[in-house]
């Protein structure tokens, strides 16, 4: 409860852009979590596919090669579902952070335009507020990128396993 209210206060201090980053972060993390869950349950499917291939009599003809390519492509699609969207979300996060900083700067400058240079501690408070979205955006992007790289590696590893398993 306390943490939730802290989070709310943090989001409220940064303005609406921080809310957007929060939303982006939520979507990104849930997509990544879905991927992790998928990889965790993928081994069974992998074994099934390899067995299916092993049970075939014809594994060398042109048609068989076509089928192998097709299966690999299918699994690549399965493994890399949403990868493109995740990558874009990671790209968007710092942009959104920058956007928050720019809107904060606009606010601060227009305030300064109305009432002159604020007191130094007020100015510092304003600058802190301005920096929050960039911080949040970068933090989200870094976390997302790290998890995404792990996912990419996992997908690559499973694909290689499959590719080796579907040998002649």
């Amino acid at each position, binding site marked *: 409860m306390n943490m939730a209210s802290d989070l*709310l206060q943090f*989001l*409220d201090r940064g*303005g*609406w852009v921080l809310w957007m980053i929060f939303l982006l972060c939520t979507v990104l993390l849930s997509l990544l979590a879905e991927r992790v869950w998928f990889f965790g349950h993928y081994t069974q499917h992998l074994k099934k596919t390899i067995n299916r291939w092993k049970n075939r009599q*014809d594994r060398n003809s*042109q*048609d*068989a090669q*076509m*089928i*192998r*390519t*097709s*299966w*690999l*492509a*299918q699994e*690549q*699609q399965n493994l890399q579902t*949403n*990868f*493109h*969207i995740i*990558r*874009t*979300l990671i*790209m*968007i996060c710092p*942009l*959104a952070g*920058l*956007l928050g900083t*720019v*809107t904060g*700067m*606009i*606010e*601060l*400058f*227009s305030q*300064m*335009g*109305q*009432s*002159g*240079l604020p007191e130094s501690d007020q100015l510092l408070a304003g600058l802190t507020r301005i920096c929050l979205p960039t911080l949040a955006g970068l933090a989200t992007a870094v976390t997302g990128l790290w998890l995404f790289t792990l996912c990419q590696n996992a997908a690559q590893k499973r694909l290689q396993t499959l590719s080796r398993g579907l040998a002649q």
Partner: protein
Amino acid sequence: MNSSRRFFSSLLFALITFLPVNTAFGETVLSPEQLLKELMQQTLADGNKEKTNNQQREQRFLAERDNQAAKLAELESQLKALKQQNQQLRAEQENNTLTLQQLAEQKNTQLANRDRFTNSLNQEFQNIAEQARLLPVTALTPGRLALFQNLSQSPELPSPETLKNALAALQSLVKDTGLAGPVDVSVVQSNGSEQIQSVTFAGPFAANNNGNFLIYQPERDRLLTAPRQPNMLTRIYAASFRGSRGDAMAIDPEHGQILQRMATEPTMFEQVNNGGAIAWLILIFAVGGIIFTGIRIRFLNAETLRVNHQKYNLHALSENNALGRVLQAWQNSAQSGNTESRELRLDEAVMAEMPRLEAGHSVVRLMAALAPMLGLLGTIVGMIATFQAMTLGGGREQLMAAGIAQALVTTAAGLLAAIPLLAGHALITSRSKHLMLTLDKQAAGLLADFQEKEIAEQQAASREESVTTKAEAIL
């Protein structure tokens, strides 16, 4: 004495003159001695008579003189008394003049005191009215502000009752500023009518009705919903504020001035308009890109549906979808040519589908990349304009700050446009890539898989058939 001698000599003269006559004409002729004697006697008697007469007259005159003297004395004493009285009165007059002067001075000082008092009273009530104009709690009891304003302007000394009323109003106002919680009060609606609503006050700083922050309108002496409201979370907090412990509510430390300043802040449209042509270009990019992305997503979704349908119905290849067309090309190439030429045909067919699936994606990508750059350009242009204006005309840092704020709007717009464009680009590219992978890598395999199954089924069927024919033969 002189007069009496003259009198006697004249008398003697007369006697000598008339003596012969008398003697001549007298009836009784007397002897001259006798006559003289008689004349003497008569003269003496006359003289006596005259003497007494004179004496009497003299006495009378004397008495009269005494009388006059007494009168004079009396009058003199009267005069003296009057003079004394005069003196007294004069002294008294002087005294009175002095008193009068003193009183006039006293009056003047008192008047000055009164004026000073009235002035300070006016000043004091003006201060009070100025503060009360801003406080939302002033609306709790209508008429207070009018009272203060009247007192701040009246040139006359107000009556004690008015002062007492004002003091009571001031006391109630001070008491109201301590209010934290809901109170029923009349609020001006958007259509101008008034309605009693439950308004939550937070001391002198804020008034809130169900999340709507209210400001005090001194002209109507009523509360009014602020034209621009703070952000949603602040309003949600404010709506749940009941003044109990732990409740939080945003307050306006400047007594409603922040809310009033918010109303004068430029709206989104004004800000974009200030950004100039570049801001509008970015906006067009954003809107156009989003609409185009939407159209592409619809098309790609439909195509994916058709392709998936084709995937599970490989016996009937349809012309209406990419997979069907690619597979038809693959099948048609089966009769003619070797494996390599077949693969070439397949690749050609796949490449022929690419423009349809990826049409316009590069434009969206370009827009997404251009938008932030354009924004930056707009900012630079705006900053150049600001600095140029400052070097030409001079200006304070406030102007510079306002100019920079305006210039930054385009950067924000560029970033704001880039985010949905990038997201849209990701959506359409992931869909088209998925389809392309299906076509490129899976198409041939899918058909081979399908034909293999068909062949297996046929073999199974023929085996079954042969078994049955054999059985028939045996029978």
